[in-house]
């Protein structure tokens, strides 16, 4: 059982406020991912939970008990670092055993737990090696093993995969997910990679500049981003945005027009919008259809053909760059004129004044 509650947490570095009052509840057994651009405070937040950074204000509770004043060593959490932080002068076995020795676990119990963890993570064969004799993936496993043997209340991961190559990252992603299923512990995972966030999380927390922008299930965030930042951050390639002005706004949908006079329709409630308001239209590359006729004409700037998928980089008449993700291959070439179809049920609309999203009446991708 480990419920982590953040109650209006604040972190100040001198006069600079890095975390501006973050409140969040992470349920027992939940896989929670903090995601955001670099410098957004996600690592700081994790280190505050770990006890490696002092908490300047607010309260941190684990299982209902305030732990602000407890040292990192007393909180019963385990952390996997981006740099792995394996003790270079110890063998893998000693690395795994170090934490247990510190709490005076009996020798045979240490051995049993180390062997169990080693078997689970398939690192038995190099228990007697030093960290520098291991490859990146193996080190990563040892670092995770060091957390696992401790049987902590909560696992903390600080960008654990960012030092691995792309292929290994996918493998380790799966392993961490399956580890979570097997152990069922609460896990908090920090990453700047939104693919990791989407694939692993039960709950994603998107942070920007020390503030939570949105927290929720991955698909909720994907389907109903609360603002333009979250919409642009989740999804790859990022969502296309077009600066528009509102033509008409009704409860069932809004019609907007861009600088070149093209009109678009979005299935969102027009509450609080009036004709002439500035807004931003958003559509994800995978929802932008390219056709021979109809829709809005765009010029193809470049094409990336991956065989199974194609990415089209185009420009509208108004000079806005658009990316389209097509399944399969395409016969279009650079310089061609194509037609982009904006389906209203897949189109997002954000207010021009504060970037907040207008509630979608129909979510095309969830149907």
């Amino acid at each position, binding site marked *: 059982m480990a419920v982590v509650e953040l109650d209006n947490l604040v972190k100040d570095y001198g006069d600079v406020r890095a975390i501006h009052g973050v409140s969040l509840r992470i349920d027992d057994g939940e896989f929670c991912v903090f995601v955001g651009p670099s410098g957004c405070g996600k690592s700081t937040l994790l*280190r505050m939970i*770990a*006890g*490696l950074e002092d908490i300047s204000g607010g309260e941190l509770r684990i299982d209902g008990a305030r732990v602000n004043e407890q*040292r*990192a*060593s*007393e909180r019963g*959490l*385990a*952390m996997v*670092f*981006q*740099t*792995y*932080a*394996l*003790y*270079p*002068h110890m063998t893998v076995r000693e690395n795994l055993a*170090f*934490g247990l020795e*510190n*709490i005076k676990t009996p020798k045979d119990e240490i051995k049993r737990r180390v062997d169990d963890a080693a078997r689970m993570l398939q690192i038995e064969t190099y228990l007697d090696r*030093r*960290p*520098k004799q291991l490859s*990146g993936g193996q*080190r990563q496993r040892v670092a995770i093993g*060091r957390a696992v043997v*401790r049987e902590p209340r909560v696992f903390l991961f600080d960008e654990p995969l960012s*030092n691995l190559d792309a292929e290994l990252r996918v493998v380790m992603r799966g392993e961490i997910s399956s580890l979570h299923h097997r152990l069922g512990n609460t896990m908090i995972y920090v990453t700047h990679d939104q693919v990791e966030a989407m694939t692993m999380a039960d709950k994603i927390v998107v942070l920007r500049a020390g503030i939570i922008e949105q927290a929720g299930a991955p698909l909720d965030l994907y389907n109903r981003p609360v603002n333009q930042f979250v919409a642009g951050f989740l999804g790859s390639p990022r969502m296309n945005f077009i600066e528009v002005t509102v033509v008409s706004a009704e409860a069932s949908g809004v019609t907007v027009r861009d600088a070149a006079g093209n009109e678009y329709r979005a299935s969102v409630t027009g509450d609080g919008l009036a004709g002439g308001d500035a807004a931003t239209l958003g559509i994800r590359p995978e929802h932008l259809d390219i056709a021979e006729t109809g829709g809005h004409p765009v010029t193809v700037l470049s094409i990336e053909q991956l065989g199974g998928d194609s990415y089209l980089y185009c420009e509208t008449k108004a000079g806005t760059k658009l990316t389209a993700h097509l399944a399969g291959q395409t016969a279009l070439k650079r310089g061609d004129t194509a037609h982009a179809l904006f389906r209203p049920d897949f189109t997002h609309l954000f207010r021009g004044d504060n970037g907040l999203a207008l509630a979608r009446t129909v979510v095309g991708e969830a149907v």
Partner: protein
Amino acid sequence: MFRFLTRTHGRGKFDVIDGLTAVYLLLAVLLMFGPILWVALSSFKTEAALQEYPPTLLPLAPITATVEGYEEPLQLFRVTGGEHEGKVLAQIRRVGLMSQMVDPAAPAERLQINIKDRVPEREFALALENYTALFERFNFLLYFWNSVFITVIATIITVIFNSMAAFALSKYRFNGRTMVFVLIIATLMIPPTINLVPIYLVVQQLGLINSPWGVIWPAVATPTGVFLLRQYMLTIPDDLLDAARMDHASEWRVYWKIVLPLAAPAIAVLVIFSVMWRWNDFLWPLIVLNRSEQFTLQLALNAFQGELQTSWANLLAMTILTLLPITVVFAVLQKYITTGIAQSGVK
């Protein structure tokens, strides 16, 4: 070994630059090692041989022979002039400029030889009594023990104190950290002689005069050591310390189990320095230690130089014995300095 010595600076033949390099290095070796070698060889000479002019490099002793009819062994000389030129004769006694000699082959006949016409016959011989006297007549082992005690204890305390200070200065953020560090470094600018009197007063008040601790305590906190270790510890990633803290390690365990082992190369350097400083220390022990049973080797060496006479043979022998331990320490630890610096588990 031969291949090592004949290595060239580039591919191919031994050329002019290699020749110059070899000459230069040879000269340096001679310059550095020559005096020590001479001291070492001289330490095996008898007192009489040391006084000889011109001096010889090798320790040589006059050859003696037992001649029939004479009880004492007689010293042998080679005759270089006169009618007996080329013969090896034994000297019975010397009278003024003439010496009475005898041919060992014909012991009955006595010969008169001018002392200018003969040179002593000598052979290579080690005067080991120089060394044995140190143990028999002088209390070498006591001085040795005093020196070892001061050196070892002071070095251990130096390493512990300096590494703790360096740990705090490199890994903790606190107000005035830079100030403290600058102050420590600033003490390097104060010449030790200026500190002599104040430190003496403190040591005296603490009642440590004529005690090895009076030598040890003032020496253990060295700005050089703090600086050296701090700079090295800055290169230890903070993540390692944080990982240890997450692993329930107390700050003391972080220091003892993580920082100290990882700073081993820097500590080896400090150990070498500290051992050399304490072992070769002369002025401070001279002031603090007045009783001969507390003398370190350096003070004992000094004591050999009496006001009226100096026992050079024993002095040289003791010098060599004093040099040995430090040479061994250096030889053992120098390997440690060059290896292991690059070890790191952090990618």
